[in-house]
Structures are given as structure tokens and as C-alpha cells.
């Protein structure tokens, strides 16, 4: 990837009281090193405004001490990256509440969002390894850090894969769980579907709200054009009560989509959009290792 980045845009131990102080100093470093050289129509304030706008939508702290503030800028000639290891960790509003010890400020032309995505995925993959993370956070030489990041992240040229963007699996039910327990779990967690797995994580099936409503709504209702003509008849509690002792294995469906960890972004979006899937299970050797749903793709891909 052709990115404005080098030892001069690596900052080791900058002082910053808050994230905006740090972001502004990183912007100053980029602009000071000639990032905007020769460009008209783009200036430092414009860059800051883009980063502010993005940050206002949602914090860019990714968790585990890593933040990725960024902005998409109209008229920008090429992407630029500034890396900072602040002296004191800075709060970027990460979901895990851990302040950022490594901050990567990325600015891209507004028609190149894929560069941002690839960079984010590449960083996440590299920093996901504890030894790499430990090495990076312990570095005290800008040039060495710049070379390392250039080699491992900037020039890596990775494709975005399911493994990069998936969420770790959190909820599941066992096949012998009763439907009563399944519905309770789904309502408590406010989730639309739940995986049915063996002890070792082997994916057996899944249960969705659609299935549950179909159980509570016998087939003949689907043939009626309306039911508004009969108002004093509300049998659904009875229908559900009849089904509540059923086991998850009896009501689960095998009509779910799985992808491997190395499925490309295009494959993922194809499954979600063209095959109208709400959720994809990421599997390794038949065992569930992650989940990708539509909101996740919107969050991590489309809304970057």
C-alpha cells in the first residue's frame, strides 16, 4: 500500500492529557512532515474536522490498549499514517475500558475506505499476537518501529477476512436445553438467534426468532390474508405452551450459513446480502470460533 509513513511519523512517548491533545499533536506531526505538501483544498483544520466527525459518531478505541482514530478526507492525494506510543495511556472510549497505549492515526482519501479497513485488519492481526504486542509496546527507537510496522502492517497487503472482523462467540445452548430455557435466554440477551452446539463447540444448528414464531403460529396462518376479522381469539400462549417442553435439538434448524476464517469480505457480504443471511458462523473444523452478523459488518466495514 502506498502510504505516507516513516520514522518521522512515529511518535514515542508524547505527553497528552486527553485524546484530542494526542490527536492534534499527531496531526501536527503529519502536516509538519509534509503530508499535505503541494495539495490545495486540504488543510490541517480540515483533517481535524474529519477525525472529530468520525470520533463523534463512535469512539475508535478498539480495546486491549489499542486505538485507531481515523478520517476520510475529500480531495486528499494519498493515505497517511501516524503512530504514537503515548507516555501515559489515553482514554479512547474502548469497549473494554482499557486506555490506549498504542494509537494509530490514519487519514485516507474518501474514495479509498478499503485502505482503512485493510490497515485496521492488518494492525489487529499483528497486534493480536502477544509477543508482537509486547515487542511493539517496548520499543524505544522510532526508526526500528517504523521499519517493523512497514514490514508487518503497511506492506503486508492482507485481504480482509472473516477472522479479522468476526466477534468471538458468546452465547450458545446445548441440544438438550428446553425451548422454555432457550426463549428465556434470547429474551434476556435480546438476541435474534442462538447457536446450538456440543460441549466442544461443534456447531449443530441454530434457533432464530423466526423459528420460534413459526412454532407459535401454525402453518395455516401463513395462508390467510389477514386475521383482523377475529379479535377475541388469541391462542398463541397455548401454542407456545405446547411447544415449551420441546428440546433445542427438536426445533433447531440446520439452515444456517458458515464461513471459514479466511473467507473474504466479498464472500461475507455476498452471503449476507445476496443469500439474505442475518448471521454467519465462522467455523474451524466444524467448531464455532466466531460470529459475523449484519450489524457487525455495518459497524466494522461500511461505517468506517
Amino acid at each position, binding site marked *: 500500500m502506498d502510504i505516507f509513513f516513516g520514522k518521522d511519523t512515529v511518535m514515542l512517548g508524547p505527553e497528552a492529557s486527553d485524546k484530542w491533545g494526542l490527536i492534534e499533536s499527531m496531526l501536527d506531526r503529519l502536516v509538519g512532515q509534509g503530508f499535505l505538501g503541494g495539495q490545495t483544498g486540504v488543510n490541517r483544520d480540515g483533517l481535524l474536522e474529519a477525525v472529530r466527525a468520525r470520533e463523534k459518531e463512535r469512539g475508535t478505541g478498539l480495546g486491549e490498549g489499542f486505538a485507531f482514530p481515523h478520517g476520510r478526507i475529500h480531495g486528499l492525494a494519498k493515505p497517511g499514517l501516524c503512530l504514537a506510543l503515548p507516555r501515559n495511556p489515553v482514554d479512547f472510549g474502548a469497549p473494554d475500558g482499557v486506555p490506549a497505549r498504542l494509537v494509530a492515526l490514519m487519514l485516507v482519501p474518501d474514495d479509498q475506505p478499503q485502505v482503512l479497513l485493510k490497515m485496521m485488519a492488518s494492525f489487529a492481526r499483528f497486534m493480536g499476537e502477544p509477543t508482537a504486542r509486547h515487542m511493539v509496546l517496548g520499543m524505544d527507537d522510532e526508526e526500528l518501529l517504523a521499519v517493523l510496522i512497514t514490514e508487518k502492517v503497511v506492506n503486508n497487503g492482507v485481504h480482509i477476512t472473516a477472522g479479522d472482523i468476526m466477534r468471538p462467540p458468546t452465547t450458545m445452548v446445548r441440544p438438550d436445553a428446553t425451548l422454555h430455557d432457550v426463549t428465556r435466554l434470547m429474551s434476556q440477551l435480546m438476541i435474534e438467534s442462538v447457536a446450538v452446539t456440543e460441549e466442544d463447540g461443534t456447531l449443530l444448528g441454530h434457533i432464530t426468532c423466526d423459528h420460534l414464531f413459526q412454532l407459535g403460529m401454525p*402453518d395455516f*396462518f401463513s*395462508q390467510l*390474508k*389477514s386475521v383482523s*376479522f*377475529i*379479535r377475541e381469539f388469541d391462542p398463541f400462549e397455548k401454542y407456545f405452551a405446547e411447544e415449551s417442553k420441546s428440546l433445542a435439538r427438536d426445533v433447531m434448524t440446520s439452515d444456517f450459513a458458515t464461513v471459514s476464517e479466511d473467507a473474504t469480505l466479498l464472500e461475507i457480504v455476498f452471503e449476507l446480502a445476496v443469500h439474505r443471511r442475518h448471521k454467519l458462523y465462522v467455523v474451524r473444523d466444524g467448531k464455532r470460533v466466531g460470529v459475523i452478523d449484519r450489524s457487525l459488518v455495518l459497524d466494522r466495514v461500511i461505517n468506517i
Partner: protein
Amino acid sequence: MTLALSLAIFAVTYGLIVSEKVDRTAAAILGATAMVMLHLIPHSVALEHVDLDVMFLLTGMMIVVGILSETGLFEWVAIFIARRAQGNALIILIGLLTATAVLSAFLDNVTTVVLIAPITILLTQILDIPTIPFLVLQALFSNIGGTATLIGDPPNILIASKSGLNFNQFIFHLLPAVLLVMWTVLIFIAFTQKNLLRTTPAARLRIMQAHPELAITDPVRLKRGLAVFALIIFGFCVGHYFHIEPGIVALAGGFLMLVVCGAGIHGAMEKVEWETIFFLIGLFILVGTLEHVGVFAILGDVMFRTIGHNLPLLAVSILWISGVLSAVFGNIPVVIAFLPLVKAIIPAYFAPLGGVENADPLLVSSVADPLWWSLALGSCLGGNGTLFGAAANVVVAQIAKKNGYHISFLTYLRYGLPVTIASLCICTVYVYLRYFAFVRFS
């Protein structure tokens, strides 16, 4: 050799259709293509046997029903009957069965049961009464009602296309028999099912609180659709005076309804049961091949030699044989096989009298027509005999199964067999009294 090979292919195909080992449409089409590929019938002759008028009639009426069903008409009919009956389950059952018969007379009866069965299940659940008898009787009445008109049941559509009999003649000759059968069965139900249909005051109150008018989801489309439908029925009634075949009336009516009601062509085409259309195409070619190689001429001759000039016996034989075979094998294939047979009997009957060409046309129709009516009554009502006798029976059983009600072969037989035997007995008397008791044939 040609005759034997044709019969062998026909027998294998028929076996596959009846056994349901493979899809019946696929079996029929593969059997038909085998006949053509082995040159048992010339390609052009095979295509001539595919009756386009039947295809047009079925396609047109399927489009019509598809559009009307979207308006909530069928839900309205059922709820309206239930409210007027004030929740009395026996009156509701009789009302629903009558409505099913009337609707089936003017619409394809498979479609009628598909549309009326779901609302029937809902009604039985509201009233907390047994669902299975309602559904089985509904299938029976869809077949009985469908017998009354040219467009009501596929066997009648097929008979009309081969016999040249028109819409009005079908009603004039078949409706009295259908009414006799209907009333006999309804009276029998009223006496035997009374205890089964007891309802609680709370259930009856729920029915009384229903609002049938809310069932109509699209009143504008319904009004327009019914106007076009009335035009179609008018077209059927007067069409033969202008030499316009029912198929053209139905097809034009279907597409006119599509335009007038603003329905989408894709949705309308999805309502057409293409598998039925292709099943018939396959059967037409299969039976056409048997006709081409002379099977039916031989059978007609044999039947005529056995029974002789005894026309009442010939008619009653057609009525019962087609009825029993329809109950066992399904009425569409049976009637397609019987069409050329009846067509072969008529010239055989007139052969000693100098041939059909030299006979008085009035005499020819007075001989031929009772045979056609016997075939119509036998095949349509015979379809009630078993679960596999008519498509409507199978469809009702499938709908029931999807909703947790199991209609077994024997359960169906408990209702179907007595109704069919009674129907065929009534029709025997009807055919004899109407066509033979007061007429002398030379």
C-alpha cells in the same frame, strides 16, 4: 410390436405416477418423450393431442383465482357463514361445505380447498371442535361441487374439449345430479355428526365477535375482480353461440383481470400450477400414442361386443368403471384414458346402422351425450373414493399434516367410500331415469 411397446411404456409410466416414487409430472413427461423418441407417434401428431384449450382454461382460471384470493374473499365467506350460523358448528359445517361446493363449481377445486382449508382450521380451533372431519368433508364437497360445471373439475374440462359439449349443457345435465348427491350427503352428515360438533357458549361468543368485513384486505380489487369474474362466467355461458372456446374466454378473462385489478404479471404467473399443466401435457401425449396405435379402438370394440346395443348398461358401466378406477388411480389420468375409449364406442355403436356419418345428428347426440355425462359423473365423483382419487384430497391431507392433523388413508376412506358409493348409486338412478327410462332407442 408398436402396440406392445406403447402399452409397456404407458404401463411403466402409469405405475410410476401411481406409486409416487418419482414426481408424477416428471414421470408423465418422460413417458411422453419416450413415446415420441421411439417414433411410436409422429412428433406433429403428438403435439396435436395436447389440447391447448384445456391448457388455456386451466391457466386462465388459475390466474383468476390467484388474484381473487389476494383480496381476502375466501376468509370473508367462511367468517360470514360462521357468524350467520351464530357459532352453531353443525350449521357452520353445512354452510362451509355448501360454500366449498359452490366455489368449486366455478373455480378449480384444488385451489378452492387450498384457500378454504386454512380458514376452516382456524374456525375449528376457535370453536374447539374436531378439525379432521371438517377437512375431509371439504375435500369431498369440493369434488362434488366441481362436478356441476365445465370448469369445476379437470375431468370435466377434458371431457368438454373432446365431446364438444358446452358450458350450459354441463350445468343443465350435471347440476341436478350434483344437487341430489349434495343433499343426500348433507342430510346424512346432519344425522351422524351432531354429537361431534358440540360447542361451548364461550366459543360461540368468540365467533359472534368476529368482523367478516375486516377480512376483505383490498375492497377495490375485489369489486373489480368480481366484475371481471362475472364477465368470464357470462363468456362461458354465451361463448358457444359465437364459437368461442372456454379456454379463450378463461385466458382472456384472466389477463383482463390482471390488467383491471392492477396485479403484477410475475405474481400472477406464480399462481399458475405449472406442474399440473405439464402433467397434463405428458398424459395427453401418452394416451394420444395409445389412441394412435389403435388401443382404444380395440378396447371400444371389445366393450361394445361385450355389452352390445344395451346403451343404459353401457352408460352405467362407464359411470362405475371410471368411478372405481378414478378412486384407485386418480381421476385425471383415468378420464384422459377414457376419452378416446368413449369416442371409439360411439362409431362402433352406429356401425350396424350404416355409420355415424349417415345417422341423424340428434340420434348421435342422444346416444353419445349420456356416455359423456356418465364419464363426467363417474370420474369426478369417483375421485372421492380414496385419498388418492383426486388432487383436492391429497392437497387437503397435506395442509392438515402441516398443521398437525393426520388424515390417514383409512380415515379418509371412512368418509370417502360411503359418500362415493352413495354418489354413484344416486347417479346410476339419475342417468337411467333421465336418459333411458322414457326413451326408446332403435
